[in-house]
């Protein structure tokens, strides 16, 4: 059985015709199921837990990257396969998974090629793609309890499970320390090369200042924090043109 969860932003007049096309295509492909629309009164966690209790084998998220990220912490511990139908503007996760936007994604669901992916975990919250920490001073990273990295200049930090630099099936996360522009030559900013460290477990500290750790533009936690890999945690339906092996 399929459960479809529609993001509140996708359930608006702007996407009304797109949602109709999606529903029609799901019926044609004989993979229609229960459709749940997110509202202020219906929480995502509640809907996913209901779907698991009613033995839904597949939970399909209809919306943007934000819906996918918000659903991760609940879906990570559920024994379900996850599908995505991208609707809206920001769909970098589904692009990387090889899933086209709108009704075309229904054909990917129907083909049902699945991949088991790693997830990242920051404190007790899971993430699929990446985290971002804005530039701050006195930032230190303790990697795998073996070595410590200190940023010598204010630097931004990306922690990626799934990006151009990171493969979500390799069993580790990557931390990228990117120095801010430090000086300008002839009007052009000059950057030092970014540092990259693969790791399984990392602790971020920022001295006495607390820095935000952000996912998809929202602060989800503050430093100090521990980030670790949760290997082979998520079964996802992917497209043929996904960006990883």
């Amino acid at each position, binding site marked *: 059985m399929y459960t479809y969860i529609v993001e509140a932003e996708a359930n608006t007049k702007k996407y009304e015709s797109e949602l109709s096309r999606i529903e029609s295509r799901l019926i044609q492909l004989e993979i229609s199921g229960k459709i749940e629309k997110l509202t202020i009164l219906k929480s995502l966690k509640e809907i996913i837990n209901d779907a698991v209790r009613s033995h839904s084998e597949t939970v399909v998220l209809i919306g943007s990257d934000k819906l996918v990220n918000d659903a991760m912490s609940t879906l990570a511990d559920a024994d379900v396969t996850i599908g995505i139908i991208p609707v809206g503007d920001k769909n970098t996760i589904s692009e990387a998974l090889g899933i086209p936007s709108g009704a075309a994604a229904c054909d990917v669901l129907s083909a049902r090629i699945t991949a088991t992916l790693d997830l990242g975990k920051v404190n007790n919250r899971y993430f699929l793609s990446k985290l971002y920490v804005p530039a701050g001073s006195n930032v230190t990273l303790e990697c795998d309890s073996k*070595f410590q*990295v200190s940023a010598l200049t204010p630097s931004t930090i990306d922690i990626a499970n799934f990006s151009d630099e990171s493969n979500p099936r*390799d069993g580790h996360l990557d931390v990228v*320390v990117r120095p801010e522009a430090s000086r300008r030559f002839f009007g052009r900013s000059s950057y*030092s090369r970014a540092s990259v460290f693969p790791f399984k477990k990392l602790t971020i500290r920022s001295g006495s200042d607390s820095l935000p750790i952000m996912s998809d533009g929202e602060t989800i936690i503050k430093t100090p924090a521990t980030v670790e890999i949760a290997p082979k945690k998520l079964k996802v339906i992917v497209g043929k043109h996904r960006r990883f092996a």
Partner: protein
Amino acid sequence: MAMFKSDSSTGKQGDTVIGAAVKVEGNFVGEGNVIVEGQLQGTLKTKHNVMIGSGAIVKANVEAQDVHLAGELHGNVKVSGKLVLATTAKLNGNIEAASLTVEEGATLNGKCVMTAGAKVEA
């Protein structure tokens, strides 16, 4: 050295890059190639290759397959393959290598033992 792309901004997937704006302290065990352009203190081990850039300062024993040294290294080097000391290299430590290239201008203070293929364990 063809094993590294010097124009790449962050190296390739699985590589470790220690940029000029960071300092690393501790026992670093890499699973891929390691590019050092900043500061490293402790130990450095990988079954793959290590490139130490001209601005890098490394105070560590290094074990790897091939090593290309253009910066400053205080510590012993054990490689199962090739060790190249570039013209800007400064090495204060002993060498164990199967193959050694020393370019004009490089500084070497230490003993050198040539092996048929020193075993590197990481």
